[in-house]
């Protein structure tokens, strides 16, 4: 009876997901599309939870639905309608794109069907569980992300940093938000401390339960973004050197510890026995701070005043050489 009930819930979730996905894509109003996309992300998080992947559910809810939604809405506000009209696709083009998408869908579904009877697919998860005791943490997802495949995570942090570097290089300072009204300010006073404590909890709990640096960092960034929107302008009075250090400390500590371990134990990121748990916590804490700084800067969407040591007005004529 309970099983049947869950089945109905699952069927409802999947149907809703498909419908939401469809109307998100079909939406002509871009703002409405983004709102629907956020809802789509939340629904997807529920489905991950039902699939017993709570780590993914958390990441999807915080990053996929939360931060991405905020970033998209922020980008929309910048969108100035261009003078020229947007290019219209011909009917032929639309149909060929649809056909290609359909073909891809069929091939992918068929291949997923093929994977169902593969015996090898669980081999790696068994290997992870058998080595879990040596990893320094008891959450297998954290063990993979910060120990077995820590190098992937290191490069992912570099990807996040590169995205922020691109934003800082391309976009000048933005105007700040107006100070918030009484209601929002009152809410912020409650919400921001709760978010900070939650981020700390997620970071700490990641060692043995779902959580970890990416989720915690995103939550910390959410607190910063709320403050920013409330008119607490983070550009003024903030020590830029401190911001630079916060931005890079995650990768710096990660690489630094990896290299020290290499000199001690022969290979990069080879944690000494007994130290793994502590080192992972140190790396995750630094990574949380860096991710939060990066996501906040991405939302602010431009370099803070004085980010570049040379004055912005030094030589505008020099850029002429790049225009051809």
């Amino acid at each position, binding site marked *: 009876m309970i099983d049947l009930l869950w089945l109905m819930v699952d069927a409802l979730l999947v149907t809703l997901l498909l419908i939401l996905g469809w109307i998100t894509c079909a939406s002509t109003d871009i703002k409405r599309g983004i709102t629907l996309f956020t809802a789509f992300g939340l629904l997807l998080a529920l489905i991950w939870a039902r699939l017993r992947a709570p780590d993914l559910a958390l990441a999807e809810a915080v990053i996929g639905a939360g931060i991405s939604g905020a970033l998209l809405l922020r980008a929309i506000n910048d969108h100035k309608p261009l003078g020229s009209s947007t290019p219209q696709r011909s009917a032929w083009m639309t149909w060929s794109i649809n056909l290609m998408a359909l073909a891809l869908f069929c091939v992918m579904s068929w*291949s997923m069907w093929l994977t169902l009877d593969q015996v090898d697919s669980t081999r790696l998860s068994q290997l992870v569980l058998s080595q879990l005791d040596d990893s320094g943490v008891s959450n297998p997802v954290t063990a993979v992300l910060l120990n077995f495949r820590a190098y992937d995570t290191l490069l992912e942090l570099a990807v996040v940093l590169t995205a922020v570097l691109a934003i800082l290089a391309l976009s000048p300072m933005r105007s700040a938000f107006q100070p918030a009204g009484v209601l929002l300010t009152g809410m912020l006073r409650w919400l921001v401390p709760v978010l900070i404590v939650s981020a700390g909890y997620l970071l700490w709990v990641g060692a043995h339960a779902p959580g970890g640096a990416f989720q915690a960092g995103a939550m910390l960034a959410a607190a910063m973004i709320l403050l920013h929107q409330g008119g607490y302008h983070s550009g003024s009075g903030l020590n830029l050197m401190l911001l630079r250090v916060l931005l890079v400390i995650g990768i710096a500590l990660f690489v630094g510890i990896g*290299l020290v371990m*290499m000199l001690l134990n022969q*290979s990069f990121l080879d944690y000494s026995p007994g130290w793994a748990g502590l080192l992972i916590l140190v790396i995750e804490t630094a990574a949380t701070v860096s991710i939060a700084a990066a996501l906040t800067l991405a939302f602010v969407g431009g370099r803070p005043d004085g980010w570049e040591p040379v004055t912005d007005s030094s030589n505008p004529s020099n850029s002429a050489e790049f225009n051809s």
Partner: protein
Amino acid sequence: MNNLIVWVIGIPLLASLLTIIWPRRANVIALLTALACLLASILLTYQVHAGGPITHALGGWASGLGIALRIDAFSALLLLMAMLVVSAASFYANAYFADPLKQVRFWPLWLMLIVAINSLLLSGDLFNLYVTLELLGLSAVALTALSDNRAALQAAIRYLSIGLLGSLVFLAGVAFIYAGYGTLDLLQLAELARPDALTLVALALLSAGLLIKAALFPMHFWLPAAHASAPAPVSAALSALVVKVSVYILVRLWLDVFDPALSPAATLLLGILGGMAVIWGSWQALLAQRLKLMAAYSTVAQLGYLFLFLPVIVALPAGELRDNAFGALLLLALTHGFAKSALFLGAGVIQQQAGHDRIADLGGTARALPLTTFIIALAGIALVGLPPSGTFLAKWQLIASSIHSQQWWWIPVIAAGTLLATAYLFRVLGHAFGPGDSVGKVVNWGREEIPALTLALFASVILGLGSAGIWDLIVDGRIY
């Protein structure tokens, strides 16, 4: 000293962080880093030559559970070429970006690009390759957008979306491989590979993603705009390295990892697309009105040649014949890397001096900028394939291998591509040596010309004369 393989990734990564902390000295940090990476890659190539492929198990975990870094003759030579190009382009960029503001924005992203190229070439894991592709694509897009004009921004946005599409398709392929084999380690996959339907679908997805990134005809449409509108040192790296490392993964997957699973029909298709790329790219290069656009279309054509090798190599029996063809593939890739970067750097000098790069208005360039014209001519020799350039030997070997594998129909394609390349090169040189003074008065561009000349000499003389070493490495290194 087996840790060098980690340092060539770790040093540029730490240097990039350092340039964020200390932007005023970013250029000094970056130049020292480029030289350190060059030195490390020379030592690594020597180690591979002396002791065969090197593996470094990250975290000390068994491969399969952890990620392995791996280097063999194939990746070592590409790494060496990449670091030579990057070093020369770094010194060039230090002079090219006169505005200190540009330098502050350029160096951290440039160092990230180096991290991406090195980690991609040294990766021994399929999912890790996806991460490196993301890093590569993102840093390349950001660098393209650094030329503050509308055309560059549009090209960069298109480059970003097409690159993300390629990454997603590639990632889908990775997921299917993982579902089918339960491992992502390339060496383990090579042992387990079987020619079943799932493998073929996965391989098709992986290849489709890579072909978009490698800009094989007809997926080349994003390349000319992006490569032609980026700042000159960035264009050099994009054309010489960024598209080429995607081809590297493709060749690695088709010839090394999944050899038993692949069908000759699929490689024949890649060869046909490559042949069309050669003809179409060369033709468009001939029609191009701007020097950098011509160089970009020439990249489309030159990448096409690399794909001509695939059906030929697959049809040859393992042994000396196959090794020879593979050596030629590698030689062509290396020579193109040097020649195209030299050409873009030379074009950058002309653009700075003249304020434009319209081919029809290049009259008097040879008088005003003799060394730059010489660089472009040398690079052109290597692109066309005149002796003693590496391209000459590689094309010669490709023709010989086509005959050995009884695929004579590639020969007219090679001949037509070579003739068209000669035509577009001489069109530029004809205008450059012609009368006119639109290029302006003589200025000393030595700080930019010397790095470009070094690359052009590698392309046209040094590689061709030293090509015996490449074949030695291939045979000793046993890539497949």
